């Protein structure tokens, strides 16, 4: 059962075709979020948001137009259709080549993520209670340091989409999500402060909150980080074996495999915003970026994932994509436009944040393929090394080549075992430097949530990124200034 009459969207598509569009698409999208924010166990804000409207996309005279409205009457939708058409037509003369989409077997389907407990169980009251408990856990887990600030934010998100296009697609989906965010600051009169953010987000129902065992996770992190904060040493200056924990690996593959393999970036469509890519079209299927361990998979179909979908917003069925395969740059993420330009088929990467956003190429769930070793086996023959378990600061250049991750929880490895804590080790490395120095991966595939930003106006979409713990040979670590 959809929240909007499919007939209105079909009418919009027909109206656009009548007005001269060669392609038309109308997408109804409703995003309902609600949640609480606490500071030091006291409520600061309780609220909700409903974004509901229709986004219309057309190709007219070879020019692509998009318009969004939240006036869900025929009059309102017609105004959006005509704005998309007239304003696209007004810039058509500047195009040298017409925009075209690849031919695809689009779907007609309806799917919904089943929940064990409804999102409604996570009332403001329930979430507030959880936030208070977690803050108490943090405060009782420290021994010597003070905790001047704890922020807790949690809530639910329900996303419904209905996409109709002139090629026959009709896709209805309902995806509920649950989210939790905890930030705390540890302070010591001589050592200054240390700050950590923990995030959880996945698709599913209210059952997710318990499955995350947040009290346990937070308590362990705080105890470990207090040790790092008070006793952490500088990392060695010489090149050493570095074991990069799955939290850092996940972000790293998102930034240095996912983004550079977005075909719109490869072709320059995001050049003035998120940038281009070191990957050029002639490198695909040929260029070696890393060792045999460098296999990065992008898969929207993982059940329970944060980036879950079965059809993209152009109606194309989703499937796993191998971005890097055994060290070779393999398959970029495509929508129907870039697929046409590169003479291939779309692999269903078009996503829109909300009704007011155009569908563009996005990641979903990106991860480095795990191996079969245990963590102990991964580090057993390292005489001197560093294990970077978590991070706070990171960034990467606009070509997705030069990147930096500053470790937060980190340890020396001595004679095959974890030893004393390390403070703020800096992994500043090129994409090829990382993937071509992987000498081992363990079997522990873990996923972490994120909100990936891209597009203009910027669109944040829910994703997961993950991987196993990864061993790099002979890397030089830096320290913060």
């Amino acid at each position, binding site marked *: 059962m959809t929240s909007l009459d499919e007939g209105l969207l079909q009418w919009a598509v027909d109206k656009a075709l009548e007005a001269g569009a060669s392609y038309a698409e109308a997408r109804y999208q409703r995003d309902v979020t609600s949640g609480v924010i606490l*500071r030091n166990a006291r*409520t*600061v804000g309780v609220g909700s948001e409903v974004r509901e409207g229709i986004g219309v996309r057309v190709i007219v005279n070879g020019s692509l137009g998009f318009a969004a409205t*939240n006036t869900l009457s025929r009059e309102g939708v017609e105004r959006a259709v005509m704005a998309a058409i007239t304003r696209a037509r007004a810039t058509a003369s500047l195009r040298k080549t017409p925009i075209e989409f690849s031919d695809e077997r689009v779907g007609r389907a309806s799917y919904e993520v089943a929940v064990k407990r409804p999102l409604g169980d996570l*009332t403001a009251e329930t979430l507030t209670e959880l936030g208070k408990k977690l803050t108490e856990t943090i405060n009782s887990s420290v021994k010597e340091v003070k905790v001047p600030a704890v922020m807790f934010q949690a809530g639910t998100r329900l996303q419904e989409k209905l996409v109709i296009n002139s090629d026959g697609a009709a896709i209805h989906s309902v995806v509920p999500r649950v989210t939790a965010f905890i*930030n705390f600051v540890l302070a010591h009169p001589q050592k*200054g402060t240390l700050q950590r953010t923990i995030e959880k987000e996945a698709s599913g129902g209210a059952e997710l909150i318990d499955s995350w065992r947040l009290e346990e996770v937070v308590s362990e992190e705080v105890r470990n980080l207090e040790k790092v904060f008070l006793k952490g040493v500088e990392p060695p200056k010489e090149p050493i074996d570095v074991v990069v924990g799955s939290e850092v690996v996940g972000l790293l593959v998102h930034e240095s495999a996912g983004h550079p393999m977005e075909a719109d970036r490869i072709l320059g469509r995001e*050049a003035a915003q998120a940038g281009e890519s070191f990957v050029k079209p002639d490198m695909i299927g040929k260029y070696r970026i890393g060792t045999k361990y460098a296999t990065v998979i992008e898969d929207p179909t993982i059940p329970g994932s944060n980036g879950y979908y079965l059809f993209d917003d152009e109606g194309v069925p989703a499937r796993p994509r191998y971005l890097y395969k055994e060290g070779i740059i393999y398959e970029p993420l495509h929508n129907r436009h870039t697929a046409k330009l590169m003479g291939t088929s779309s692999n269903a990467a078009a996503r829109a944040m909300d009704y007011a956003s155009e569908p563009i190429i996005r990641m979903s769930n990106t991860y480095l393929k795990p191996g079969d070793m245990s963590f102990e086996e991964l580090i057993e023959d390292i005489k001197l090394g560093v294990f970077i378990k978590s991070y706070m600061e990171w960034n990467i250049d606009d070509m997705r080549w030069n990147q930096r991750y500053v470790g937060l929880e980190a340890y020396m490895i001595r004679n095959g075992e974890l030893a004393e804590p390390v403070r703020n080790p800096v992994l*500043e*490395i090129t994409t090829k430097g990382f993937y071509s120095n992987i000498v081992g991966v363990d079997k522990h595939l873990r996923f972490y949530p994120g909100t990936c930003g891209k597009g203009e106006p910027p669109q944040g979409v829910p994703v997961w990124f993950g991987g196993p713990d990864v061993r790099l040979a002979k890397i030089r670590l830096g320290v913060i200034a």
Partner: protein
Amino acid sequence: MVTALELAESVLKRLEGRFDDVAVLVRQRDYVMVKLWNTEPSVTQSWIDAKVSVLVSRNGRVFSTELSVSDPDAVDNALRNVGEILTKLEPSEIYAPLPEPAEFKPLEGLVDQNVLKAMEEPGKYVEEMIDAALKEGAERVAGTLVFGRMTKALATNKGFRGMEEGTEVEAYLRAFKGEFSGHWAHGSRALDVNALREVGRRAGMYATVTNSKADFTPGKYDVILSPLVVGNLIDAIGWMSSAMAVMMGFSMFMKVKPGDKVGSEAVTIIDAPRDTELAGSTAFDDEGVPTKDKPIIKDGVLVNILHNTGTAKKMGTESTGNAGWLFPTPWNLHVAPGNVKSEEELISELRNGVIITNNWYTRLQNYVEGIFSTVSRDAALLVKNGEIVGHLGRIRIADRFANLLSNWELATKETHKIRWWEVETPTKAPYVLIRQVNLTKPFI
């Protein structure tokens, strides 16, 4: 069609008897954006919609909601259970009653009729930007041109009524020549074709400023930051000047207080909501408090943390007119100019060092300590003996905001109106010379 204020009043009427405080904020927009890719439009996007935000409270318990609807009944419907929800909440730590309405002085000149006309023919202005970049020798360009009109209306149960309408222009262009690129941006309330041409010209100029490359060794350098880079970093500092950021542990101002020295005497940063040239200008904030221009940092001293009535009450002070119901924010930012007559003269003052013309991806390891890094994009140039000798490629500023503010030495007289993807708060900023900035690059 109802006006934004009529819509706000209509929603207010349905709610005001049921709560102690009710504020209804309506934003209606009509925007068009042309996005450029390989010197041609990739998409033309339009938004014609409305957003209704509602704040209600009872006995200090507060609930806020934001709805993308234009129908008062739909708002009423969405809020039908709020009364019951409120009974189960605890009072908000930052609750303060909505303020009694104060007279505010409306801002003149927020609407430029030329922007409204340009919305229907953005193509010709796009061409102006492209041509200016190509004339400088650029081979291809990408970028964005936005024209828009926004109407904001606020009605509260304390009797505040306010509505203002403003237009907006945002333009930025990235020009490429071979492996080098340049970038420039502009943001304003009015259409100024020369400013759009200047976006293209400066982007083209930085893409073609030199064909040489220079070697780079990580270390401390004297650095000139362009207004784009200054805008990006000051955006982060402006965000951290919010009282809520301070309270939540997301601010370098958590460890200091107004009156403390946080930078060199050359540093003055002002929140400037009364500057009608910039698109953040507004006469009243989201609680109906009249806005005023005020320094955040003046002559290197922290002067103001930005407040709404709730954070102000919590910290024992007055609202600065920066609500945000939950999170106070700056409206427009001014970075005070210096005395240096030109960019050339600033390069002479630099003598040896680095010019960073654009950056992105500023992230913090620790907000309280202000430990951050950011990556250069487009031209990052090595200067030797006052001359630009070559591109350094993509390098990173990895330092502490406190160091940057302390080592802030000189600035140009001229400021530039900047707004783009990486400078969200409309900003006027000069070129700035900062001594001894830590710059890095990967080892492998």
